[in-house]
């Protein structure tokens, strides 16, 4: 293999038949013996040849579905902050305070976690790339759902753990308000934006918990009692319907 390689401009001109005959012969003679330059010949007419000196690729980046999901999820640093703080707060409440923490406080925080996470993981104020993402094919509802899914994946187990520690209702029942509140937040966000919607839904939940239980109670609270299943499912369904119906809403 020789040290000499065909210049980008010459290779391009040759690929487009713009070289004089003698020049074309010398390019062809070189291509015969040089695999590097052969690989640089543009496959599509009109495109420039691949650059000769591509820097070493740091690491192999296989274009797989798994990597795509990882980057999509990882792309929300705000989401990570929200997850960590939400998990930290709940763990702190349950572990360090033990029995001294009122159980209704756990009920207040647990199901609201995904609302918090959803609000901070996207939206023009918290997502620095919102403007860029909004113009892409993946923008809009689909990226919101991906991020919500990633938030739910983290916060659902935490909420269930909260339910387990608090002893209020069965832990599985805690997941219902989680899902319902998240659906409601997303539905409302198509009208008001995520920040306002999270405040409204979070505030509503706060009011509901305080109103339903007053201050500390020992009985299984109504909000996570088995009888609350149909209303929560209904809220989730209505929220999902609004999300589907309003999916083209752009602000």
């Amino acid at each position, binding site marked *: 293999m020789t040290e000499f390689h065909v210049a980008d401009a010459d290779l391009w001109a040759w690929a487009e038949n713009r070289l004089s005959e003698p020049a074309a012969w010398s390019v062809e003679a070189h291509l015969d013996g040089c695999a590097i330059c052969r690989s640089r010949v543009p496959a599509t007419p009109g495109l420039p040849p691949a650059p000769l000196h591509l820097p070493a690729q740091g690491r192999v*980046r296989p274009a797989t579905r798994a990597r795509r999901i990882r980057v999509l999820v*990882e792309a929300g640093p705000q989401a990570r902050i929200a997850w960590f703080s939400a998990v930290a707060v709940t763990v702190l409440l349950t572990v360090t305070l033990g029995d001294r923490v009122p159980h209704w406080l756990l009920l207040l925080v647990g199901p609201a976690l995904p609302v918090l996470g959803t609000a901070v993981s996207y939206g023009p104020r918290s997502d*620095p790339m919102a403007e860029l993402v909004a113009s892409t094919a993946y923008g809009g509802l689909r990226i919101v759902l991906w991020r919500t899914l990633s938030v739910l994946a983290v916060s659902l187990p935490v909420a269930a753990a909260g339910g387990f520690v608090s002893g209020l209702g069965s832990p599985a029942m805690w997941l219902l308000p989680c899902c319902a509140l998240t659906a409601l937040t997303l539905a409302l966000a198509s009208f008001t934006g995520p920040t306002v919607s999270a405040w409204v839904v979070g505030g509503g939940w706060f009011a509901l918990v305080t109103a339903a239980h007053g201050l500390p109670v020992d009985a299984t609270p109504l909000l996570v009692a088995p009888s609350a299943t149909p209303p929560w499912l209904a809220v989730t369904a209505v929220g999902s319907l609004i999300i589907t119906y309003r999916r083209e809403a752009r602000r």
Partner: protein
Amino acid sequence: MTVAVDDVTVRYGRRVVLDGLDLALDTGVHGLLGPNGAGKTTLMRVLATVSVPDSGGVRLLGSAITDEKALRAVRRQLGYLPQTFGFYPRFTVREFVEYLAWLKEMPAAGIPVAVDRALQRVGLLDRADDRMRTLSGGMQRRAGIAQAIVNDPRLLLLDEPTAGLDPEQRVEFRALLRELGVDACVLVSTHLVEDVAAACERVSLVDGGRLVFTGTSAQLAAAGGDGDAGDSAIERGYTAVLRAARA
């Protein structure tokens, strides 16, 4: 027509930002000129499908964008550089462009090569593995241009692309623009009249949310007389057209 804007109005509260604007663009490099606050960025956002007009029709790439499927089809062929954009601090330059290539639903297998090619075209390939936040403002701008062209868009919208570029880079960028304009419809919003004169075949001038001039750069230059303010013929044409529109 790649872009057909028909009587588009956009309001922010009571303020009318685009006031019954019409615009038709085809393949080539088009300049979008106008004073600050004329509605350039709002028009760019409408064309980038980020913002929906209050009234009027927008056809992009021959599609009226009536449903989500059509919207996605248009967005796949769209490149957009906003006036200001952010990035995630941990992203390297390559990850930044790669991430947007994914979001644009490019075929996964072609992405690594397309990303490197886009970075090469804006002269950032040697910084590909540096973190975005370590780049200078001009380099971040070039990374923004790279993400806009990574999918070989048929409609490329660049809002103030030369802000922060030094004179040599601006000359290189104009050459890139001319290259891109062969196959795509490129709309460059700027307040720098000389950028338009050097790189754009056609110019549209917006003032007060309306289109007040459209034509070739030479026609804009010819609109000015000796009495108009400006250092070059095209600047004199610009001030003359604005003055006539406001009269």
